[in-house]
C-alpha cells in the first residue's frame, strides 16, 4: 500500500510486528489448560492465580507501561469485589453483570482519582496512592451496614453462569470462568499496549515532560490508562468475590497492593506476561512452602525474592528473554 512510503510507516510497522502472535505466546496460553489434566486437584488455586494475574496485569498497565508507581491499587480491586458482593447480597447474583458492575464502579472511582494521580510522579505518587488505599480501607471498615466491617460481607450468593455452571468444590467452573476473563483482559491489554496510545504511554514513562512537546498530552493519557487499569482491577476483584462468595476488608488491604507489586517485579514489569508469570510463581511457591512449614514459610519467599532480584533484575521473564537472545546470538 501507499503507507510504505509514508513517513509514519516506521512506527506503524513496528506496532504491527509487535502485535503479531508468536509461537511462544500460543504455547503459553495452551499451557494454562494444563491444570485440567495434570493437576485437577489444584484448580481452586489455579483460579485464584488467574484472578491475581488479572490484577497484576492491571497494575502492569500503569506501572510497567505508564510508569505510575502505585501502592494502593488494591483500592480498585476491593471496590470491584465489594460492588459485586453487595449486588449479589441484595438479590442480583448474576455473575457476568456483576463483573461489569464491579468494573464500572472501580472505573468511575479510578477516573475521579486520576485527576490527582496525573499531576504527580515517583515518591509523591507512592504516598498518594498509599493514602487513597488506606482511606478506602478505613471507609469500608466504618461502613458496617454496607460492608459488614471487620467480619466481612455475609450472604453473597452467586447464580450459575448462564444458568448452567454452578461453582463447585473442585473449582472447575471457577477456573474456567477466571481463565476466560483473564484471557479477555489480556487481549484488551495487548491491544492497548500495541497501539499508538500504548507507545505514547511508554514515552510518558521515559519522559513525561517531553511527551506533550511532541503532541502527546501526558495528563490525558495517564487519566485514560489509569481508568482502564482501575476497571480491570475492579473486574479482578469482582471475580474473586464471585468465585469465593466472600468479601472481607482484606481485599482493600495494603498487603494485597504490595504483594501484587512484588509479583509484578518477580515476573517482570512492562511485559504483559510478567504479572501472570509472577503471580503464578508467587502463589505456587506460597502454597508449597506454607504446606511444608506453616509457620516460617515467609523465609523461603523472602529468599526467593532476593535471589530473583539479584540474579534477574528484570524479573523472571526479563531473564528468560536475555537468555533467549544470547542463545540466538545478537540480531
Amino acid at each position, binding site marked *: 500500500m501507499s503507507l510504505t512510503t509514508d513517513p509514519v510507516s516506521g512506527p506503524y510497522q513496528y506496532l504491527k510486528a509487535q502485535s503479531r502472535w508468536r509461537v511462544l505466546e500460543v504455547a503459553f496460553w495452551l499451557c494454562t489448560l494444563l491444570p485440567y489434566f495434570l493437576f485437577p486437584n489444584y484448580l*481452586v488455586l489455579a483460579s485464584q492465580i488467574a484472578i491475581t494475574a488479572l490484577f497484576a496485569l492491571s497494575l502492569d498497565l500503569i506501572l510497567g507501561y505508564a510508569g505510575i508507581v502505585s501502592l494502593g491499587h488494591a483500592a480498585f480491586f476491593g471496590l470491584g469485589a465489594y460492588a459485586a458482593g453487595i449486588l449479589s447480597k441484595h438479590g442480583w447474583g448474576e455473575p457476568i453483570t456483576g463483573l461489569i458492575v464491579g468494573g464500572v464502579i472501580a472505573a468511575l472511582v479510578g477516573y475521579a482519582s486520576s485527576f490527582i494521580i496525573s499531576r504527580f510522579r515517583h515518591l509523591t505518587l507512592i504516598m498518594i496512592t498509599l493514602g487513597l488505599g488506606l482511606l478506602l480501607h478505613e471507609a469500608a471498615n466504618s461502613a458496617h451496614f454496607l460492608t459488614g466491617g471487620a467480619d466481612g460481607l455475609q450472604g453473597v450468593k452467586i447464580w450459575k453462569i448462564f444458568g448452567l455452571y454452578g461453582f463447585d468444590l473442585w473449582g472447575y467452573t471457577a477456573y474456567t470462568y477466571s481463565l476466560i476473563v483473564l484471557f479477555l483482559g489480556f487481549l484488551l491489554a495487548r491491544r492497548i499496549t500495541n497501539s499508538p496510545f500504548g507507545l505514547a504511554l511508554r514515552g510518558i514513562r521515559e519522559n513525561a515532560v517531553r511527551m506533550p512537546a511532541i503532541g502527546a498530552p501526558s495528563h490525558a493519557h495517564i487519566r485514560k490508562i489509569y481508568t482502564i487499569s482501575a476497571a480491570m482491577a475492579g473486574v479482578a476483584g469482582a471475580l474473586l468475590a464471585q468465585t469465593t462468595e*466472600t468479601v472481607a476488608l482484606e481485599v482493600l488491604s495494603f498487603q494485597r497492593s504490595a504483594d501484587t507489586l512484588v509479583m509484578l517485579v518477580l515476573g517482570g514489569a512492562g511485559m504483559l506476561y510478567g504479572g501472570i508469570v509472577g503471580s503464578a510463581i508467587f502463589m505456587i511457591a506460597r502454597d508449597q512452602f506454607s504446606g511444608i512449614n*506453616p509457620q516460617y514459610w515467609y523465609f523461603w519467599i523472602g529468599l526467593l525474592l532476593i535471589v530473583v532480584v539479584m540474579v534477574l533484575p528484570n524479573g523472571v521473564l526479563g531473564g528468560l528473554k536475555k537468555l533467549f537472545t544470547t542463545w540466538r546470538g545478537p540480531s
Partner: protein
Amino acid sequence: MRKLFVSLGSLAAAALVAAPASAQQPIKIGLIMPYSGQFADAATQMDNAIKLYVKQKGDTVAGRKVEFIRKDTGGIAPDVAKRLAQELIVRDNVDLLAGFVLTPNALAAGDVSEQAKKFMVVMNAATSIITTKSQYMVRTSLTTPQVNESLGTWAATKGGVKKVYTMVSDFGPGLDAEGAFQRGFKEAGGEVIGQVKMPVANPDFSAFVQRAKDLNPESIYIWVPGGAQPPALGKALAERGIDPKKTRVMGQGEVTDDAALKSMGDVALGIITAFHYDPNHNSAMNKDFVKSYNEAYGRNPDFFSIGGWDGMHVIYEALKKTSGKTDGQTLVDAAKGMKWESPRGPISIDPQTRDIVQNVYIRRVEKVDGKIVNVEFDKVENVKDPVKARMK
C-alpha cells in the same frame, strides 16, 4: 525455583511411601489457622493445646490413627481460608476441619463445610452467627455476646452499678461487645450515660479517658483488642486519675490476660472482667492442664489453648461414639448435647445451635502472693449464646 521442585519431589516421594503403609485408613484432620502474620501467636497457643491433647490421649482413636494437615491463612483472609478448606477436602481428603481463630475465615470455611457435608470444629472465632453457616459445625470457644451480655446483666444486678460509660474499639468485635454489654445492662435496669468508639489503630487513649473522667461515671466498660492496647489503656486510666477501686472498670477477659497484666502492673488492680477461662481457674483438672502445658511449652495456656483443647475433646469423643465413622452428619449428631468437664469448668454443646454452653466467670484483678492475677469471685452458670437464643 529449584528449591520448589526439590520440595515438590520430596512431597511426591513421601506420598508414594506413605500410601501402602496402613490397611486401616487414618483419620485426617485439616487445621486452618493463621500460623504466620500478626495472629501467629494465637495459632501457636491453640496448636500447642492440640498437640498436648494428642500427646496425652494418644494418636489413635476408635482404632484409627489421627493425622493433622496444617494450613496457614496468614491472617484475616476468607478467600484463602475458603480455598484451603476446599483443597483440604478435595485434594487431601480430610475427614473434618478444625482450628479457625478469626471470624471471617471461619465464616468462609463454613460454606465449604455445609457444601461438602464435613464436620467442622471452630476453636476460637467468637462472632455469634458463625455456627449458623453450616449444620455440621460445632464451636468450643465462646461467643462475644455470651460473655458481654452476661457481664452487663451481672453489673446492673449483683454488681450494683446503675450507670455506665462505654469505651470500645471501633470495629466489628468491639461493636459486637458494646452492643451485647449495653443490651444486658439496660435490660437489667442500668443506664448508659455515654459512649465512645476509639480508632482501632490508636494506642493513645488519654483524650478518650479524659472525656470519660469529665462525666465522672460510676463505672466504665472497655473493650479493646488484646496485645498492646490493654496496657496502654491501663496507663491512660492511671495517668488521668481514674482508680479502678473507686470508679468500677469492667471489660472482657482479654483486657487482663497474662501478657496485659504483666505490662500493666499495679495499675490493673481492681479491674473486673468476664471470661470463660483463666489459667488461674481453681480446679484440679485445670492445675494439671496448666502444669503439663507449662512443662511442654514453657508458658501458660490462654483462651486460644482452651478452645483447641476442648475442640480436640469433641473430636475424640465424637469419633469414639461413631466408632470411627467420619461423615459430617454422624459426627455432628454425636457431638450434639455432649457434656464434659473441661479445665475451664463444666461445658456442653447445645443440641439446637451446636454452640458452646458454659459458665461465664466474673473476675477481679488482685495481688496474690505478690503476683497480679485474675481472681474469680462470681459466675453466671450455663450461659447459652443469647443472640441465637433470641433468633427462635
